[in-house]
Each structure stands twice: as C-alpha cells, then as structure tokens.
C-alpha cells in the first residue's frame, strides 16, 4: 500500500515540471523509432530497464539516507520537526554527495543530467510547500538542483515511506512520462497506452526489487545499465531544438 507522498509524487498532475519532459520519446518519434503502440511498448520497456532501474536504485538509496534519522524511526509518516543534530546531518550530507557523484557517473549525457536536475529543482519547489523538512537541507546543500531520483527518495524516506515506494515511484515515472508524451505527440489511443503501462507491471516490480536489493549495498554497486541510444538521442534532442521545433525539453 503506497503512502501519500509517493502517490502524490507519481501523480501526472503533480506540479513539479515533469510534463515538459518526454524521456527521449520526442526524439525517437521524430526519427520514426516510435510510431505506434507496439513500438512505444518496446521503447518504454527499454527505458524502464535502463534509465528506470538507475533512477529506482538511487531513489531507494536516498530514501535510506533520510530515513536514517533518530526521529523518523519513532514517528513514521511524519517528517522530523526539529533540525537533526549536526553530526547526523553532516553524515547524511556526505552520503548524498556520494550518491550525487555516483548518479552523475551513470548519466553520461549532459542533456539527461540537466533534465534530471530540472525536474529535481521543480519537484523541490513543490515539496517545500507541501512537506517542509530540515532533512532536505542536506541534499540541497550538495547541489541546489538535486537529481530527481535523489529528491524523491529523500522526501519519501523523510516521511517514513519504505525504500521500495520511492523506487516504484521513480521507476513508474520513467515510463508514465514518455507514455503521456506519446499520447500528445502521436495521438495514440489513450486506453491502449494506459494498458501498455499496466502490462509493464511485472517488469516494473522486477526493477523495484533489484533496485531495493542493490540499495542495501554501497553506492558504487548500485545498478549501472547503459542505454547508449537513449544517451545519444537525448543529446540529439537538444541539438535539434536549436535547428527546428521541439515541443519537450527532453
């Protein structure tokens, strides 16, 4: 049973700026690589097992960082109301800095790093209005535009939600965003596209399980599957935006 935080963060109407990103789908559409429901399903499965798995692993690890505070153990589902001790917050900041560096290393495309930070920044703005918590200061201190999976994990963890909820939230967003973009770009039947998302359920749960398991180990061992075509298309998207129309940021 998901908690309210991960439900709200995974909602397509959450005002965190996600709707202007297509996760590479716009570039794939413009190249004819995604043109109908079947090719969309292949695109989404590939994205789930690469970008989705990386994001899920880091969200789960980040949730563990913010959950590891004295107050969250006693009051589940409630962010700590007082500032954590400086030793705890310093340790947390160091762990987030390590996760940030590891995630950067797994994201070779500058355009994708920018897209992740843009969505993290947008989500942070909405989160600060909804769940203000001093725990997040440590993540923002590492970078004022935190990577999206790290922020989602941090918020879920601070609210007492388990790591798998954070992982499921970002893994789902990795496919629901491009699926929504496909409806807008290709005019696909929304019922068919929604059914694709549901069909990917078992693959999604497998990604969540792998992410949570990996998050129990050191950050250097977090999943690092590569998706060179997605990386190249993300770069090409930005390049083409300067020459002709692109409707999405990524």
């Amino acid at each position, binding site marked *: 049973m998901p908690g309210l935080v991960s439900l709200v963060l995974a909602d397509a*109407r*959450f*005002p*965190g*700026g*996600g*709707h*202007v*990103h*297509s996760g590479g789908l716009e570039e794939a559409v413009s190249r004819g690589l995604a043109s109908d429901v079947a090719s969309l399903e292949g695109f989404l499965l590939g994205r789930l097992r690469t970008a989705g798995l990386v994001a899920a692993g880091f969200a789960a690890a980040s949730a563990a960082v913010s959950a590891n505070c004295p107050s969250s153990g006693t009051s589940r589902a409630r962010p700590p109301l007082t500032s954590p001790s400086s030793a705890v917050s310093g340790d947390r900041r160091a762990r987030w800095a390590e996760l940030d560096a590891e995630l950067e290393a797994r994201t070779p495309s500058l355009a994708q790093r920018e897209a992740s930070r*843009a969505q993290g*920044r*947008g989500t942070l*703005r*909405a989160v600060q209005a909804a769940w203000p918590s001093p725990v997040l200061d440590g993540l923002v201190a590492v970078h004022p535009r935190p990577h999206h999976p790290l922020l989602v994990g941090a918020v879920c963890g601070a609210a007492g939600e388990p790591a798998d909820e954070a992982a499921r939230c970002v893994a789902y967003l990795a496919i629901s965003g491009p699926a929504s*973009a496909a409806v*807008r*770009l290709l005019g696909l039947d929304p019922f068919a596209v929604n059914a694709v998302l549901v069909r990917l359920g078992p693959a999604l749960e497998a990604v969540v399980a792998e992410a949570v398991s990996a998050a129990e180990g050191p950050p250097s061992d977090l999943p690092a599957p590569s998706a060179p075509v997605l990386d190249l298309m993300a770069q090409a998207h930005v390049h083409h*935006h*300067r020459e002709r*129309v*692109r*409707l*999405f*940021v990524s």
Partner: protein
Amino acid sequence: MSADHGHGHLISFDPTETEPDHHAAPPAQGRALRIGIGGPVGSGKTALVAALARSLGERVRLAVVTNDIYTTEDADFLRRNAVLPPERVEAVQTGCCPHTAIRDDITANLDAIETLEERFASRDGQGLELVLVESGGDNLTAVFSRGLVDAQIFVVDVAGGDKVPRKGGPGVTTADLLVINKTDLAPLVGADMDVMTGDATRIRGELPVITQSLVEDPSATEVGSWVLDRLAARVAA
C-alpha cells in the same frame, strides 16, 4: 455568465471564516512585477509584447518569457522587433500543453523567470522591474495561475469573430485586462466593433477593455499606460 456577475464582491463559503478574504494579495516585494499575456492563436500576443517592450523598454527594466510552440522563432522575433537584447528573452517548452505550463504546472515558467531575475540582480545590482510572460496560443479557457503572475492580459482579435467576447470563458471573463486587437481589420472581416465591445463590457462588469490596432498605434499606448499604472500602484503599496 450573467451580466451582473460581480467581480468586486468577495464571498467566503467557509462559515467559520472570520478573517478578511485573502484574494488579490499584493505581490511579493523585492521582485519584478509579473504580467501574463494570454489568448488564442494568432490574436497578436507576440506583437503586443514586442510593442510593449519597444515603448516601455527605455523607462522600465523589463524581460520577457515566451511559451509558444515555435519558441525560438518567437524569441528571435522579439529580439529583432522589440530591440530586446537576447539576455532579456527566455523561451520555455511546454510539452504540447501551453495551458498546463501557465496554470496547472507552472514550474518551467517559474524557472525561466527566476533565471532572468537572478541574471539581472547579480549583474548590476538593479533587478528587473517587470517580467512579461507570453503564453502559447491556446483556447478561451486558458488563464494564468495566480502563483505565476500578478496580473494578466487576455488578447483576442476581431478576425477571430465578433462573437468571441460573448462566448466568455475564464480568459475573457476574469483577465485583469481584455485587449481586442486588430481593430483595423474589422471592416475587412465584417466584425461589428459595437457588438464586441458591448458584449465584452457586459460580461466583464467593472474590468477594463481596450480596443487597439498595432498598425495604427505601434506603441500600444493604452495598454502601456495600463502596465505603467500597475507598476506605479505596486511601488506605492
């Protein structure tokens, strides 16, 4: 929408509410006044923004955020026609949903505004006074969120049909200023200006309506005065 729809009367539906209504809160001090410019495709939003930038640019430290589908084209148009240096124009992509980007999820626009504000605050210590946010062309129901702008102008044009004001919708009905554009075309498209202004005034009550032709008045004098009044009211507040 009935003719006597009262915009000035604020009604609380909460029986426990004892405080004065908090609507129309003054904008936060210390940042630029943000004015949204919305309206249907082709009604002349970009031309109005260019006219305002030309006529106010000398007196007011302003910048522009564009949201249109051809973002770079609009931004280029403004740089050419509004004598706006490139660093004063930011273009936003809206993921095929221009109304979402100004209403339901304003993140991309807020990021663009904050980028502009930070750019000019750090440059010469003199921050921006005015940011114009031009929405992508949309339909009659698209309005700006109060979380994004302090005031909004809705632009329709006579070539879109003289029944547009009568159709209403939140843009025509609630915008702080309604501009009926391209009045020079009225005789050519068979639009009855009396019908348009009559319907607009009836449906909007006290809220102002300006008719203009940028062919006849390239400076958009009346709209410019309205914007300056807004700026002055804010300084006085």
